[in-house]
């Protein structure tokens, strides 16, 4: 079959809304009916990014002019239009879209009718952009700051310029109490205490605000607040599976969570963090602290399917660090971005050799108790194949792929150099703490065996007084115990010899006596094995004797069991003897020995990601930080900076921040400080309904006021506990049961977070999905109101706060209200609010004074803090409860 027009080789399913055919027999409309079909099925191969055979269908001006056959559409003549022939696969043309399902007949008919009607389309329209010109793919160049006034910060200079251009008038600075609460919630996730608020309100020094910023950035709770943000982006998930079976992520992955929190607190440069997450095992192979970072990869573990596992790894490495959607290029070339299907699999090749393992923590070898989940390169020889149409049943085995960076960004990937790992990095047996644990275990075995013998001797002394069988049995017991003791002692000796042999073998250069020590260690180990087998044979013989004396009913089975045990022991003896005959030095290592070489692939990838010349990495990171301070992104499509992603609302500001971030040494705290000390950040958030700027910029794209944001579930829960003074501030450690979020008081970041294992309260407030959460939703729904109103924790904290503020009960209603507003909302009550609250307190107290007239609700949860007996105090707790539900409490204003 001839394929006369390479131009129409198109493969492409895709997104974008499909227009439905018009109902009536109106003329076919190019914009409504035809263009969406082209966009959906054709332009990925015949557009700006790729124009196969020279054909482009991304804009009308190309229809009649491009393609090897000189125009694919002949107006009014569908029979001569190559486009139609190709779509039908007629006239010898390869059927398009190639390697994809044919277009539905109705769509082909529509195109045919459109051509027959004259192929009416605009003379020209906006063509898709050239990827080389795409803003996010161009190098970050630090833009000129549009303001030379040194008193204005850089952020403000950019923002004010746009205010002026649009004619919006920014709000004034937020009241100081609002500002302080905002700053606390943004930087540490908890509100200020009344004392901290008081101190700030009374601090007239010009640098009062800056000093608070510095203090909060140095506060360890900052890492807990921002750790949770990055855990969203990096897809933190505790392990999950079916019952106790691990299917996803890793047990003890909390070590990675602690690394995130600690790294942020230590202000680790972001570039270093990225490198450690992708390749700490290569760049810091002996640094257990850094190795925790590779939880980023270990989290993708999926028991059942390696392809799914690696697909997710590629997808989320791309989305999290680069804002690139490699996942769209798994089955075909990317529809919009210059990422070929081959690029997708070449990216996979960087990860192909890696696997996950648990390293002992503090020498503890019990993987159920603890362990460090980390990655390592297990097999350097596994090939990577492109899957034809993404089908894992069709690997293209003729063309194994090397690890290569996307060609559009890096035409030629620099050579990947393998990494020789130090011995202790691939063999935990060399670690002192592991040896110590093994020695202690072996010592304990010897002690236990010794104790058993001693017990026999004592029993024997007694038993010897008795006649006959008893003493014979005791003698047998004793010889078993003695044989076991001998075996335990030999094992202990062998352990020491294996350690000596290890020391000699792994010395650099290996010690001269390494071989002889190895032979000696192997011999002792084999002797110990024989001794153990001997002991078990003795035990089996004894059991055989005893079986004869069992009651008839049990005898037969006991004899058979004993015989089985004896057979096994004899077999073990034979095997041990055979082993003992060997003279080699193959003693068993203390722990698993992993490969001593790593491919270096992930280091190569990581170094490209954090290369200051990479146009994406800093922009993506800066956007994440900005979003979580302002509640709205500069680039709305958080994980897609590609050509169909959103354009930045303020490209110069984004680029300046990105350039500054890199120049500062990828310094997060510097970036936070820049943002929160800007005037823009400090603007008021309360907008009157008749504010004139609302008409110009209702969505606040120009940042003429601060965005009020709903706090995340974590902020709401932690703040309630903190306001009550009951927050348990211990940091780090194993994840806590998700359901315990109502009954314990640790910070929310420490509760189990995995699909099916979310804390219900946190999840009600649009909690992060552990599968993917580059930006949290911010909804307001009644189930949130129910959680906040009816949760045990809200009721308990309200009672605790009320009791604390109530004191001896002499305060006036107005005083109590003042205290409660300040404590819970960090502000004073307005006079109308005060009046409403006073009336409430009076009514509620009267109501509660006559409980027999009231209806008790008995279906909800228990509480650990009982309601007060005093109607006045209980009414006050009721008021505090209302304030904990107030918009101003759950909102970061």
């Amino acid at each position: 079959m001839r394929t006369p027009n390479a131009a129409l080789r198109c493969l492409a399913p895709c997104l974008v809304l499909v227009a439905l055919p018009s109902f009536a027999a109106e003329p076919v409309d190019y914009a409504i009916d035809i263009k969406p079909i082209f966009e959906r099925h054709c332009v990925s191969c015949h557009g700006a990014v790729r124009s196969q055979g020279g054909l482009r269908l991304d804009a009308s001006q190309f229809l009649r002019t491009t393609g090897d056959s000189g125009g694919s559409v002949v107006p009014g003549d569908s029979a001569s239009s190559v486009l139609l022939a190709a779509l039908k696969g007629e006239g010898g043309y390869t059927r398009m879209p190639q390697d994809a399902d044919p277009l539905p007949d109705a769509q082909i008919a529509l195109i045919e009718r459109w051509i027959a009607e004259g192929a009416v389309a605009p003379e020209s329209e906006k063509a898709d952009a050239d990827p080389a010109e795409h803003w996010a793919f161009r190098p970050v160049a630090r833009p000129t700051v549009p303001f030379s006034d040194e008193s204005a910060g850089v952020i403000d200079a950019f923002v004010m310029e746009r205010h002026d251009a649009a004619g919006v008038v920014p709000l004034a600075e937020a009241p100081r109490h609002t500002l302080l609460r905002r700053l606390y919630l943004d930087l540490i996730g908890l509100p200020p205490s009344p004392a901290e608020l008081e101190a700030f309100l009374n601090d007239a020094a010009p640098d009062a605000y800056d000093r608070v910023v510095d203090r909060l950035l140095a506060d360890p709770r900052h890492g807990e607040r921002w750790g949770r943000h990055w855990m969203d982006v990096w897809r933190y998930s505790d392990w999950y599976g079916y019952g106790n079976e691990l299917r996803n992520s890793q047990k003890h992955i909390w070590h990675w969570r602690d690394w995130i929190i600690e790294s942020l607190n230590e202000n680790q440069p972001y570039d270093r963090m990225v490198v450690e997450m992708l390749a700490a095992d290569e760049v810091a192979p002996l640094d257990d602290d850094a190795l925790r970072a590779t939880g980023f990869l270990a989290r993708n573990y999926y028991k059942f399917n390696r392809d799914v596992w690696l697909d997710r790894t590629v997808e989320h490495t791309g989305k999290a660090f680069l804002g690139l959607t490699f996942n769209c290029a798994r089955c075909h070339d990317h529809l919009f971005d210059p990422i070929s299907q081959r690029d997708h699999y070449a990216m996979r090749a960087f990860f192909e050799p890696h696997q996950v393992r648990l390293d002992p923590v503090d020498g503890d070898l019990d993987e159920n108790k603890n362990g460090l989940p980390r990655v390592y390169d297990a097999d350097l020889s596994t090939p990577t194949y492109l899957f034809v149409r993404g089908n894992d049943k069709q690997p293209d085995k003729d063309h194994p792929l090397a690890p290569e960076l996307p060609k559009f960004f890096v035409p030629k990937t620099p050579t990947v150099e393998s990494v020789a790992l130090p011995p202790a990095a691939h063999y935990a047996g060399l670690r002192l703490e592991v040896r110590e644990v093994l020695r202690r275990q072996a010592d304990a075995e010897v002690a236990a065996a010794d104790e058993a013998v001693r017990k026999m001797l004592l029993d024997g002394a007694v038993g010897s007084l008795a006649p006959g069988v008893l003493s014979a049995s005791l003698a047998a017991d004793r010889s078993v115990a003695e044989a076991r003791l001998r075996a335990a002692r030999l094992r202990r000796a062998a352990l020491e010899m294996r350690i000596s042999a290890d020391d000699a073998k792994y010395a650099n250069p290996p010690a001269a006596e390494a071989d002889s020590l190895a032979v000696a260690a192997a011999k002792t180990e084999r002797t110990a094995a024989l001794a153990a087998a001997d002991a078990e044979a003795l035990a089996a013989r004894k059991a055989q004797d005893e079986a004869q004396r069992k009651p008839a009913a049990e005898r037969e089975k006991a004899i058979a069991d004993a015989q089985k045990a004896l057979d096994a022991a004899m077999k073990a003896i034979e095997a041990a003897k055979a082993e003992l005959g060997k003279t080699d030095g193959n003693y068993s290592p203390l722990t698993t020995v992993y490969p001593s070489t790593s491919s270096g692939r992930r280091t190569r990838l990581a170094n490209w990601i954090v290369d200051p010349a990479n146009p994406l990495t800093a922009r993506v990171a800066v956007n994440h930080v900005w979003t979580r301070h302002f509640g709205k992104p500069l680039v709305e499509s958080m994980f897609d900076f590609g050509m169909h992603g959103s354009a930045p609302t303020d490209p110069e500001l984004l680029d300046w921040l990105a350039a500054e971030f890199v120049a500062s040494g990828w310094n997060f705290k510097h970036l936070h400080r820049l943002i929160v000390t800007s005037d823009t950040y400090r603007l008021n958030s309360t907008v009157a309904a008749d504010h004139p700027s609302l008409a110009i910029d209702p969505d606040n794209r120009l940042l003429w006021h601060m965005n009020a944001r709903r706090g995340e579930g974590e902020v709401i829960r932690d703040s309630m506990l903190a306001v009550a003074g009951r927050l348990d501030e211990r940091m780090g450690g194993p994840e806590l049961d998700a359901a315990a979020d109502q009954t314990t008081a640790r910070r929310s970041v420490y509760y189990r977070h995995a699909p099916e294992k979310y804390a219900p309260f946190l999840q009600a407030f649009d909690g992060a999905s552990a599968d993917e959460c580059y930006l949290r939703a911010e909804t307001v729904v009644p189930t949130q109101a129910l959680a906040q109103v009816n949760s045990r924790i809200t009721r308990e904290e309200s009672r605790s706060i009320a009791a604390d503020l109530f004191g001896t009960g002499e305060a006036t209603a107005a005083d109590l209200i003042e205290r409660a507003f300040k404590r819970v909302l960090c502000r004073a009550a307005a006079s109308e609010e005060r009046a409403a609250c006073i009336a409430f307190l009076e009514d509620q107290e009267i109501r509660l004074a006559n409980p027999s007239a009231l209806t008790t609700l008995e279906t909800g949860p228990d509480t650990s803090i009982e309601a007060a007996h005093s109607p006045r105090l209980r009414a006050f707790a009721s008021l505090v409860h209302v304030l904990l539900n107030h918009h101003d409490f759950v909102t970061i204003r």
Partner: protein
Amino acid sequence: MSGFSSSVPSGLSRRHFLSRVGMGFGALAFDAMLARDGHYVSAGSLPSGIAHIAPKAKSVIWLFMIGGTSHLETFDPKPALNEFAGKTIEETPHKGVLEASYLSENLRVVVPNDANGQMRSTLYPLQVGFKKHGQSGIEVSDWLPHIATCVDDIAVVRSMWTTDNNHGAQLQFHTGRHSLDGNFPTVGSWIHYGLGSLNDNLPQFVVLGTPIADCCGGHNGHGSNYLGPEHAGVRLNVDARDPLPFASPPKGVFREEQAAEFELLSRLHRLAAEEDSDPALKARLNSYELAFRMQTAIPDLMNFAGETAETHDLYGTGDKETKTFAEQCLAARRMVERGVRFMQIFHGSNGGAGAWDGHSNLQTGHASLCRQTDQPIAGLLKDLKRRGLLDETLVVWGTEFGRTPGAQNSNGRDHHPFGFSVWMAGGGIKRGFVHGATDELGFHASEDRHYITDLHATVLHQLGLDPRKLDVTGRKRLEIDYGEPMHAIIA
């Protein structure tokens, strides 16, 4: 615009933020209320609460049997299995089923060489008898005597297929995607997303019974994934005392005490709203008022005191075996009356693959499970019908896959994704109708084959939704995700 108009009356600004903040019970519900009152038709592709096409049904009751109900012992009798019982498929004239390309093309294996999900060659006879029922003469298993009396209201589809031979097919049945592809919005969440509320005091996508377990998709089986958490199914217990998490305040709080708190909160929020135009503030004010009404409305919903003894008997709430499912079906009817859009009722949860997973002892297992569900389902259909609700309520009965014609473990059947049955009733579906068929052995769906998204498309169509208009920008949907309505069964 093509096919539907877009007029937004002046004075109603549709600020993006409002529409985002208020999703679910906020702005979307608000939109729906306006639409319901005939105020306006929303613009463009934003979900609007407005049907794309004339709706036939208002509500859906989606009954899901967890574990894989045998099509061969319920709605798709195959006498050939009795004829060739004990023979291998190769020994029968129907051995061609083993060469069908469906076997390799349609199957995506998750756990290779698993003990289950294998070809079972030795044919296993039918474990129950069948009789023709009603005017339509549709054959129904003797284990389902009550449903048999409703068969003239039902359209049975005998030609479903799916691609997972393990219980990830439960997730797939609801999202349309194989579990290896990940998690996607479920059919109920699309409906919630696409249609507005008919009752502002109740959640619109309700889940009854214990959902599928972690092994098989867990909460993603009633999740909403990228549509956002507000569109996910809300689990309710048929228990007026404890219908949903956080439904009632801690023990000992007085009703009047809490009512006063709600009142003060509203007062304070209204005061704040005088100064502040933040739409989130108004949405919050609204959400608390709705929450307060829900606190009453949901327990009321689950309080069956007003139902007659005759109604209770109809569903079988008094019988130990049928009680649980009967109460769930009765609750579903009460929700239909109150305008809940989508009720997803699970039967057969056992913390794992599901009770219907009849690898062994299929006869005793299925007989008992059928008994637990038969009368409640029939009661539901009859009750809806006599109240005139069946015409606007679509009842769907389904399961993740069928079971093998061959025997497993001497007295069971294995997972069978290649052909199985579902049925629908009411909501503009043909009555007493059989659509599609499997081959003589009940192996492959052979006539009018339907992948599971065709079922989704049918349900959406009856509600007036076109799945192709429910795309979300930036979220790629494959052709197979949309499905095609089963036009043959639409009345």
